């Protein structure tokens, strides 16, 4: 299974899990053209799109995706906030009820973000094993069993934010209360059983308040796993086994 990062960060998020026969779109916060391009214009492959919350950097193209005939899965709150509640392509999720799209089994769970009803996803596919997708949250309530791949937000570092946003108390507080710091991310990773994990992919790094190299080193040091910092356009294999 291949992971394509169409977009990451506060300018727009969209991630694609794709093999020869099917693809799952995670988030659609980029221009629809970019999504189509990433799929090589083969939208038939797309079994569905899952959206964590309504903020534009995660849901920008939600209506276009629906118009292209793709079912979009999100919480009731998310669909209400996106004004897509009544669309027949809108599938409303109850947390944490698992559902199935194609061969993807998905379990949505609640997260802590300043949106209507935000969630994260645990995705299972025979090829990838359990893939955790978690972004835009202050912290995660849960730990997860048998993870094989982790896609997780590491938004800011306390050191950087203290200096850079010293004069902007409001923004600093907002970031702290709705995004995951490097420390929280590492603490979360350490709380989980990582023995079967192949890849840790860090997403949604804040442009100003993070440091790619430092984040990668710190997470590698803490977990001993292969850590990749997602950049727009990144493509990589994520599978259940490393080979």
């Amino acid at each position, binding site marked *: 299974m291949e992971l394509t990062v169409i977009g990451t960060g506060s300018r727009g998020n969209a991630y694609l899990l794709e093999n020869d026969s099917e693809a799952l779109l995670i988030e659609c916060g980029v221009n629809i053209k970019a999504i189509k391009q990433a799929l090589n214009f083969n939208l038939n492959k797309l079994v569905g799109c899952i959206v964590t919350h309504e903020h534009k950097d995660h849901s920008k193209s939600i209506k276009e995706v629906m118009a292209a005939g793709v079912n979009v899965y999100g919480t009731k709150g998310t669909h209400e906030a996106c004004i897509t509640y009544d669309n027949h392509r809108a599938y409303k999720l109850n947390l*944490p009820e*698992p559902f199935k799209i194609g061969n993807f*089994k998905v*379990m949505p*769970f609640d997260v*802590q973000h300043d949106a209507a009803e935000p969630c994260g996803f*645990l995705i*299972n596919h025979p090829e990838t094993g*359990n893939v955790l997708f978690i972004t835009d949250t*202050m*912290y*995660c*309530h*849960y*730990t*997860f*069993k*048998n*993870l094989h791949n982790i896609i997780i937000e590491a938004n800011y570092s306390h050191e950087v934010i203290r200096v850079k946003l010293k004069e902007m*108390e409001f923004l*600093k*507080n907002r970031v*702290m*209360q709705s995004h995951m710091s490097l420390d*929280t991310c590492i*603490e*979360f990773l350490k*709380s*989980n059983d990582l023995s079967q994990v192949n890849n840790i992919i860090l997403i949604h790094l804040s442009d100003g308040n993070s440091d790619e190299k430092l984040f990668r080193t710190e997470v590698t040091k803490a977990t001993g796993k292969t850590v990749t910092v997602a950049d727009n356009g990144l493509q990589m294999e994520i599978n259940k086994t490393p080979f």
Partner: protein
Amino acid sequence: MSNQNQLTTVKEQTLNNVQNRISELQKGGFKLPSNYSPENALQSAWLMLQDVQTRDKKPALEACSKNSIAMGLFKMVQLGLNPAKNQCYFVPYGKDLQMMTSYFGQVLIAKRAGLKDVKANLILEKDGFDYQIEQDGRKVVSKHEQPFENFGNKIIGAYCVVTLPDGKQDTDIMTIDEIKQSWKQGATNGNSPAHKNFEGEMAKRTVTNRAIKMFVNSSDDGAIIDDEMQGVSPAEAHVNQQISDNANKKEIGFDEAEEADHEEVNEDAENQRLMEEALAEENGKQKETAQPGF
């Protein structure tokens, strides 16, 4: 009676809320000044609040929103002020209860922040008063002669000398016109009994307030932060607390047993099939071997 009961419930709720919030924040690393007891301050604040009235003589505790009351109390604790010593007072503005730091409170905060001394004097008519401005911009009083006969003369100004942590002194000087102008910004326009009867004392407070304002408002929280612990803002402390209380607590995931079952079933089925095949083969062989016998 029912009114009294109502007040008691409001009190319990509000006080508990503020107290809980503070202890929660403290756990998360939020620092209060040392030698300060938030409980004592909250209790006496509550007693004082009972007598505070709005302009139309309604009790502030009924007229003001619970949220603004809690906010006011919280601000008081955050600054480490004691209302029993008149370091702060509560003023209702419509539905909002505001905590205002008094002159004493300002001096306390300034001293806590490291100011060594604050001293104000009046300048009376016929006083021999002179000051100069140093090269670094600080004003220094070079001469102030005030013979005893001048007592009772008209007040023409006031000045306040603050001694900074490094021992240097700075002075703020105001003419009586400036002082009266600043009183006009107040609610009573400078016509309160205190302003009328104790003009001198009030003038000293005004100039003191101005002299230390710059120092207080531009100080960091050095005074209330332990050296070992890096300072965290209330918001940060709250975030830390929430994270340590709630993060990574519950395990979820796809039911592995279910999956395992599937696999086992599959394996069983596979084994079964292999065995059947093997048996069939054996049987077949037996049959084959048996056949020629017939």
